[in-house]
């Protein structure tokens, strides 16, 4: 989660249910992200930094985005009913807007998988993790 260019929040969570499809797995991580966004928006608003628009929530799975956006999408959404409802509510109250981002560009990958040196370095840069030589 970024505030402007600054990275302020992240979380790795083990899926507590084994998902048969990548859509479901993707969909499960969204409520947690959603909850964090809602909390941060409230905190920022209280301090005088109200967010002018809905917060973009990027995901790289188009089906997951579609399920969230469309209340009558698929039978299979029965299993993730509660999560669906929560995300849809956040969408309708304009707290979040769901955006697709292609797999190549996901900065979140550094939190979900091991990677090669090049990929790792590239994403480190994107997180604004910088080397500051000691000078104290």
């Amino acid at each position: 989660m970024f505030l402007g260019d600054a990275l302020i929040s992240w979380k790795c969570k083990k899926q507590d249910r084994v998902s048969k499809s990548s859509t479901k797995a993707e969909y499960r991580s969204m409520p947690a992200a959603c909850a964090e966004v809602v909390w941060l928006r409230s905190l920022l608003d209280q301090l005088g930094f109200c967010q002018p628009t809905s917060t973009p929530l990027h995901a790289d799975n188009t089906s997951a985005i579609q399920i969230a956006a469309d209340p009558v999408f698929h039978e299979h959404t029965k299993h993730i009913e509660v999560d669906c409802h929560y995300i849809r509510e956040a969408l309708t109250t304009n707290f979040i807007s769901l955006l697709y981002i292609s797999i190549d560009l996901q900065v979140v990958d550094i939190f979900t998988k091991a990677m090669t040196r090049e990929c790792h370095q590239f994403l480190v840069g994107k997180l604004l993790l910088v080397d500051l030589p000691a000078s104290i």
Partner: protein
Amino acid sequence: MKDLAQLIYFLELEVHHRSNGIFLKQQKYIQDLIKLASLAETTSVDTPIEVNVKYRKDEGDLLPDPTLYQRLVGSLIYLTTTRPDISYVVHQVSQFMSSSRHLHFAAVRRIIRYLKGSSTRGLFFPKASSLQLMACSDAD
């Protein structure tokens, strides 16, 4: 009450003020961790975990004494405050606190060797940045 001083060290977090923004790092904490793990003389590595490696609960021999493992992982967990680049691996190794094995310990040593080569790295909060929130989510 003691006088007001500029914020530079709080909860073992080093706060560095620069003209372009604020840096947050835990370099001293990392050095202490390297000493605790007795890895001061080793070479560093470029990534915190090897690609295509999965750690399992029952693989390999149990560590005779898990306390060092637990201490190291405890410290690594606190280090994720300023080092999101080790979040994933620390999350992995923290799952073996109660039944840690040699393979898990080797993984922890690798993380620390990675930190050794990037001990000055930390979070940067730029000046005059927009304060618009943005989020990403992913599952593996």
